[in-house]
């Protein structure tokens, strides 16, 4: 996990835009999964740490599509397992 954590720190330092984006992602996830925002750390896994089941994941991806105005294919959605994955995916798509 430290690797992911340090990566996140690095992003925070260099990119306030990503910081804002990360905040929005965390808020959406907390709301959607009914968890405390504090639990939504970058390395948190939706299934293992945030208690999401397969239906929650489908709905979460739909919510990301809405919030960030993009279409996420089923193939891509399968690769999104952690909060950091979401940030990376959205940043890559927005770049």
């Amino acid at each position, binding site marked *: 996990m430290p690797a992911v954590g340090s990566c996140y720190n690095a992003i925070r330092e260099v990119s306030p835009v990503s910081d804002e984006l990360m905040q929005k992602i965390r808020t959406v996830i907390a709301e959607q*999964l*009914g*968890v405390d925002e504090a639990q939504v750390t970058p390395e948190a896994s939706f299934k293992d740490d945030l*208690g999401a089941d397969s*239906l929650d994941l*489908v*709905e979460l991806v*739909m919510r990301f*599509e809405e919030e960030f105005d993009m279409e996420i294919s089923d193939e891509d959605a399968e690769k999104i397992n952690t909060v950091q994955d979401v940030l990376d995916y959205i940043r890559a798509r927005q770049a």
Partner: protein
Amino acid sequence: MRRRVVITGLGVVTPIGNDVETFWNNLVAGRSGVGPITAFDASDFPTRIAAEVKGFDPEAYMDKKEARRVDRFIQFAVAATRMALEGAGLKITPDIAERVGVIIGSGIGGLATLEENTRALLERGPRRVSPFLVPMMIANMGSGYVSILFGAKGPNTTVVTACASGTHAIGEATEMIRRGIADVMIAGGSEAAIRPLGLAGFTSMKALSTRNDAPEAASRPFDRGRDGFVMGEGAGVVVLEALEFAERRGARIIAEVAGYGLSADAYHLTAPAPEGEGAARAMRLALQDAGLRPEDVDYINAHGTSTEYNDLAETQAIKAVFGEHAYRLKVSSNKSMIGHLLGAAGGVEAVATALTIARGIIPPTINLTDPDPELDLDYVPNVAVRADVRVALSNSFGFGGHNAVLVLKRYDPGPTVETAKEGVAP
């Protein structure tokens, strides 16, 4: 010897109270739960009133995430179940889990969920339909979700018979305990259909009261001025137990389910059979099942919807079954206060009937100020009465011609207790 079935727990979410005591006090006080619709803008509808549940907080009964994943009708079912189990002092531990079942009926299921997702589909396409549409909408999920949340691993099914669902659910659950395939059943009904689509459907049928200027006077069963029913919502759940199971754990017994009768009109989609023929047969069969005579009945918790046809046919049916005794027993309609809870009606009304027996007070039929000359029974107009109620019927009749009747009886240990104990299932 057939196993005896008793009621040991009650739970309700209703337009006049979201717990049993508040509900009962308002029922006895004759308070109406009908008002202008607040759930959505109903200004385009001919009927703009309903009996809505007020101030219901699902998170008082389940965690936030669970509450978000289920439809309102399921939230009601969970809340009523939690109350009923707490009242019964029953915790579903692993050693009894497989002997505890659930039948919670619903006439319609998750209508809000269906509406929202239909809109999403039509306006934004199939990718916007929620993965929770199906599990939230299906009418059996009240039973399913209650079993998941409370760990009830016994018989689990549902009943969808429109406005008779709740009564059928309790009757069928009783039969399961009698058959010996469960010792405890969580049974009743749940409904949350006060939605634009539900309202439009019932208004198109001309089934609803349009007394928009006087909501509290709109539901007036057996009154000459009745002009249709008022939609209600909520849930009513009872905990049923085999008598020996309840006695063994020292449970407080509220009433006994003595009989269950059911029939079909085989007549029309929505209209009752002439003279209430099907309803009369269901009442006779229920009494026969209970081993009681018509003269034994003190009170009937009527279906009493406040529609022209139901109240007439039901009155005729009561006269056909009870003859002269029809004028001696008392009849009243909870719907005059709570509106018509559709699939939940039988659940809530069974709760009210059990309390009527246990507490010796018959809730009134409110708004009965101008008696219909054709309807000449004692409908307990406007004011509750104290009465020794030993045997009571609870009637429910559903679109499709489904008739269901429960006979509830004051619990009397009587001489049959020892015999019943010998029949304890393993």
